[in-house]
């Protein structure tokens, strides 16, 4: 009695009439019933390509909707004495001009430390800081009034502090300085530095990075009954938005519902920093009793929100004749901007990733989060991890050039061991190290040695253009450094017709989280993708969620959704065995068919029978990551459940006359565990690689040196990579490596680790620059390696100029 089952249906993705394009192996696995390990298209792909996937601004506006804009501070530092609202209120369409005094609850949207005013409270902290919230009948009118704020402000300007080095010199920190120290005995680091056969010291400078999510920040607040609000917000953290809004209004959390179906990109920029906009839209909506939308213009998004922290480094490293590090001391100075935001956790992650894949016997790393009069820096994919790990790769390269050895040989000499040399500076023992095997495989795949020789040959016969090549490894810790955040909930509904709706606490920002979670549910229930639908993240469905961040989205929410789905499956199995005979444990679910004691019936049929027999067909699910613990004072413990690994080899060419750079080829091998969806994982890897390459090459942030204006405030002046920057020779493969921990189907998180892969591009540029000098040439190259930075680095070698 096979019913309703079409094998072709199983070949379709989440769009029921669009067959999946799969390689032969995955196609066979799909037909055999697999739902994970399949390169299903993104659950919204067919909507994306048709312009039919709604983002917040696409939702039809309720009648009477007002539009808000934020008026920016014209100075980077000073005292705001008063605001004369009369002139603004007289402008066409303006309904209200709200200031700090109009906020009924707390004037604060700081996620951790409460030092982040929603609207300026008297002290002006950066140029662009919102001083007033203008509400008007149309967005253009609100923006126009906001742009005219200048003459309405009575300000006493002060001299801003604009660079991290300057704040560091003054000792002006946003948070207490942190130190991660691990020595074999007290004083061992000093001794190692003093006794070393070789020693290098220096400074390094690394720029920040704008998230440049294609969809800018937006929040749309709609009043609901009995002092309530429903807020549509492009955010990675609906629960945090809920809390911040309630806090600002002096309400309780249950008065606020926050919803997010999808974001047009987040990258960390919508983790805490969507809070300002969610709060402003909500304050205006609550006060005026009308729906209020706040959608930022791109320029305002640049000048009001923070981004990846720029870092400055001082370091001192000791090593032996093989280039093996015997001791290292480093100070990391992050530019935190005007408020703490997430900078504390970002710095912790930076400190915990300075080791990257290398064992550091004696080590002291100091972190300083500088307070400056600039936008407050925040989460960005990698969350400090890349800023920590890049330093050690620069150090490896310098050691190799100092010793005249192949940089890869120096890296290998320093790799973490498997049974020994396997404890991190924060005292976590690494139990899943595969870096050496992974790098070996990539060296072969990329013909690294052959190409090193070819690059040298090219450089001998070319004077204007020079090539460089580099191979760098990745080790990245997975879990929130704050243990209690490592939890998630999900809700799975099986409707009586056999269709399934999934809800979980994670948010979809393009990373394919909903796709993976739906795959996990389809797998648990043995049904086709088209039978599963994901719904918007909604604080009224799952409470107290964590941010979708730290790459943990699929790990946490996938597990929670599987928990929920398995509960339902077990109920169905019990029911099937009771109704049709046999043991519940023997009931099989696959390809929309349930097999029980020799008969096969459609999943939908069984569901209908179970419904009529009054079986509960929906369930919640919950997951908390085991094993993690952390001592935030001493900076030790097991912050990470496991590590993800990878490596990349990049070859570049530079123009010694202009400093222009082009990436010629990149080979990537990356560990996504046993991938839930290889296509999505490769998308994350390549997308992260190119994004990170942008950070390290063309994406330069420039502030005016004295007035603190962000000069690169739009895509006209801030340049992220384009299609032409993606090399034709981009070879990406997954490293087959089931997680040693029982994560969801033994997969690994893949969002952030690939940011480290593009270090190979920067190091290859360094290699090419070194080729303009003599033996042992060790260029002083800052990041981003813009054409000007490249020429400066060439000049640092005193190379022969035409």
């Amino acid at each position: 009695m096979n019913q309703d089952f079409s094998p072709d249906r199983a070949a379709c993705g989440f769009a029921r009439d669009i067959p999946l394009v799969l390689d032969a192996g995955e196609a066979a696995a799909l037909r055999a019933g697999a739902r994970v390990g399949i390169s299903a298209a993104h659950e919204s792909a067919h909507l994306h390509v048709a312009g039919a996937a709604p983002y917040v601004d696409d939702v039809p506006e309720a009648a009477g909707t007002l539009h808000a804009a934020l008026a920016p501070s014209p100075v980077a530092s000073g005292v705001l004495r008063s605001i004369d609202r009369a002139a603004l209120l007289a402008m066409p369409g303006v309904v209200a001009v709200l200031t700090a005094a109009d906020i009924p609850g707390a004037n604060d949207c700081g996620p951790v430390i409460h030092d982040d005013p929603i609207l300026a409270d008297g002290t002006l902290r950066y140029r662009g800081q919102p001083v007033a919230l203008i509400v008007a009948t149309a967005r253009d009118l609100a923006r126009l009034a906001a742009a005219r704020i200048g003459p309405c402000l009575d300000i006493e300007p002060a001299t801003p502090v604009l660079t991290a080095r300057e704040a560091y010199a003054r000792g002006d920190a946003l948070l207490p300085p942190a130190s991660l120290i691990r020595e074999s005995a007290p004083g061992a680091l000093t001794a190692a530095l003093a006794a070393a056969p070789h020693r290098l010291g220096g400074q390094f400078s690394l720029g920040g990075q704008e998230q440049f999510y294609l969809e800018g920040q937006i929040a749309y607040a709609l009043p609901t009954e009995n002092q309530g609000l429903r807020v549509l917000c492009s955010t990675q953290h609906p629960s945090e938005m809920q809390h911040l809004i309630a806090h600002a209004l002096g309400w309780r959390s249950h008065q606020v519902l926050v919803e997010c179906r999808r974001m047009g990109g987040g990258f960390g920029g919508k983790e805490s920093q969507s809070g300002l906009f969610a709060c402003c839209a909500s304050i205006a909506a609550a006060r005026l009793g009308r729906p209020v939308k706040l959608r930022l213009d791109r320029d305002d998004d640049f000048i009001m929100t923070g981004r990846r922290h720029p870092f400055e480094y001082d370091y001192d490293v000791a090593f032996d004749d093989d280039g093996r590090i015997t001791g290292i001391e480093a100070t990391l100075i992050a530019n935190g901007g005007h408020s703490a935001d997430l900078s504390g956790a970002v710095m912790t992650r930076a400190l915990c990733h300075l080791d990257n894949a290398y064992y550091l016997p004696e080590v002291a790393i100091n972190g300083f989060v500088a307070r400056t009069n600039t936008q407050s820096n925040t989460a960005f994919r990698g969350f400090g991890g890349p800023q920590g790990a890049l330093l050690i790769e620069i150090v490896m390269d310098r050691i190799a050039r100092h010793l005249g050895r192949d940089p890869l040989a120096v890296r290998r000499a320093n790799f973490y061991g498997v049974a020994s040399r396997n404890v991190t500076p924060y005292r976590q023992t690494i139990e899943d190290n595969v870096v050496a095997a992974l790098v070996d495989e990539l060296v072969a795949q990329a013909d690294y040695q052959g190409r090193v020789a070819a690059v040298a040959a090219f450089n001998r016969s070319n004077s204007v253009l020079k090539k460089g090549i580099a191979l760098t490894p990745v080790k990245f810790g997975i879990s929130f450094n704050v243990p209690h955040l490592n939890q998630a909930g999900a809700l799975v509904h099986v409707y009586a017709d056999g269709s399934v709706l999934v809800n979980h606490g994670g948010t979809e920002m393009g990373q394919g989280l909903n796709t993976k979670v739906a795959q996990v549910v389809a797998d648990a229930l043995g049904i086709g993708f088209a039978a599963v639908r994901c719904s918007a993240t909604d604080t009224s469905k799952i409470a107290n969620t964590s941010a979708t961040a730290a790459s943990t989205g699929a790990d946490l929410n996938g597990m929670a959704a599987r928990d929920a789905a398995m509960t339902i499956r077990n109920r169905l199995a019990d029911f099937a065995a009771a109704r049709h005979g046999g043991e519940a444990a023997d009931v099989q679910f696959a390809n929309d068919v349930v097999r029980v004691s020799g008969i096969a019936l459609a999943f939908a049929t069984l569901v209908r029978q179970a419904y009529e027999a009054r079986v509960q067909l929906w369930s919640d699910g919950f997951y908390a990551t085991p094993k993690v613990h952390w001592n935030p004072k001493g900076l030790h413990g097991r912050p990470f459940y496991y590590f993800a690994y990878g490596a990349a080899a990049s070859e570049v060419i530079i123009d010694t006359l202009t400093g222009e750079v082009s990436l010629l080829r990149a080979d990537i091998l990356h560990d996504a565990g046993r991938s839930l969806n290889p296509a999505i994982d490769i998308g994350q890897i390549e997308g992260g690689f190119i994004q990170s390459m942008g950070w390290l090459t063309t994406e330069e942030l420039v502030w005016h040196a004295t007035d603190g204006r962000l000069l690169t405030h739009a895509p006209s002046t801030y340049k992220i990579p384009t299609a032409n920057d993606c090399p034709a020779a981009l070879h990406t493969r997954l490293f087959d490596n089931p997680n040693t921990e029982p994560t969801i189907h033994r997969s690994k998180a893949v969002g952030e680790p690939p940011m480290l892969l593009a270090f190979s591009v920067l190091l290859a540029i360094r290699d090419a620059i070194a080729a303009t000098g003599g033996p042992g040439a060790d260029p002083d190259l800052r990041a981003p390696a813009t054409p000007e930075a490249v020429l400066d680095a060439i000049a640092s070698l005193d190379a022969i100029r035409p």
Partner: protein
Amino acid sequence: MMQQPISFYFDNRIVRVADQPITATVLAWLRGAVRRTGTKEGCAEGDCGACTVIVAELADEAGDAGGIRAGNLVLRPINACIRFLPTLHGKALLTIEDLAGLTDRALHPVQQAMVDCHGSQCGFCTPGFVMSLFATYLRHQAAQTTPDRAAIAHDLAGNLCRCTGYRPILDAAARMFALPPATLDTAPIEAALRAVAAETGAGLSYAAAGQAGPGARFYAPREVDALAAWYAERPEATLLAGATDIGLWVNKRFRDVGDLLYLGDVAALRCIEREGDVLRIGAGATLEAAWAALIGLEPALGEMALRFAGPPVRHAGTMGGNVANGSPIGDAAPVLMAMDARLVLQHGAQSREVPLDAFYLDYMRNDLAKGEFLRAILVPLPDPDTRMRAYKISKRFDCDISALSCGLAVTLEGETISRVRLAFGGMAATVRRARHAEAALHEAVWGEAAVRAAMAALDEDFTPLSDLRASRGYRRLVARNLLWRFWLETRSAAPLPAASVRVRTFAMAGAV
């Protein structure tokens, strides 16, 4: 002239709009007035491509150069965010929502290929990419060709994606040609556009209902004389071409542009033709068409053309607008100056010619009188003894604003330089020639010694500024080095091919 509503083909019919202000953008109208929200706003300044749509017009008139031909239509991808709605009058607007209707399948091949290749992640950039790829699809469908990877990447240079890293989108662009084809039936669009053209007469005169006073009128004549007369009478009006500058003034600086006089519907201004030993580029010719014509004269300009903005801006903006706007970092002027271009300026019925190198008076000031406009750019055909290159330096290869750019030309008699033009942008308050460096080369032998002398002389020519794009020191050093590169590429003995001195040329020439 009679007031008319803005009439254009949209959603399979002629729509008439009478209530929008003259500077309403196509994007605002789509997303706001008709709630067609598939087209996205990522920047509102022409830089991200999320708002890419296709504008089609009848090919009858001179304006098809540079566009994509389908039936009797010419189609162009443009940025809806900086295009004013009244300029659509008499044209057709195709958006992402129209694509599925061109096929009897669930998705158009462009869309299907994007799904198959995992070309979307967050999906916000995707409609714009699909529309740019749709333009590529139509162009190659008409020509029965398939583009290579480099050509596709150039077609996508005006679209930013922050998620994918582009590889899957480039793959999709190759795959779309392998799927069952879909064709655009142009007949109903043509018929509708002819009907609108017939009722339009001498041109559109539009003001939003109830706002017909001065400062809010839009006028789009079809004849040069009408344009000239109208402008001479109302010199305070803003002359509007592709709006790739003006659109930003409105969106970002809230500038009140007053009455708009649109020159984009004057067919005679869009002509590009040879007249004797001169190439005449009508001021209204698109950047795409104008660059193609210049490359026809001097193939070495190919890279400069590709790097001038991205396709949607090049399909909308004009070279005349670029020259008239006169930004010190405009990229057309150095090239045209090196080619000894002259400008035809017209005021009412009067016209005059000025050499381009005498046109710029000071920062953003030029020689145009009130009510006078640029009618055409005259480019002498290069003589065979001239060696020319144009270089642009910016942080990013594609669609970036120049830190500096230059057009460099030497004409040789034997080995002696008989004529030299070295024009630089980004080095001073206006684009201008480097007279000292030119003097160092004039009548000299085209050899290393003269080049080094000219490089040194550049310091006397320019005292550039430091800004967010580059420091003074960098600009100085690279200006010299570009002269050196020019010599390496054009010296008589063992000239270096472009792939030996330019990283992108090298990268595109051969995969590793």
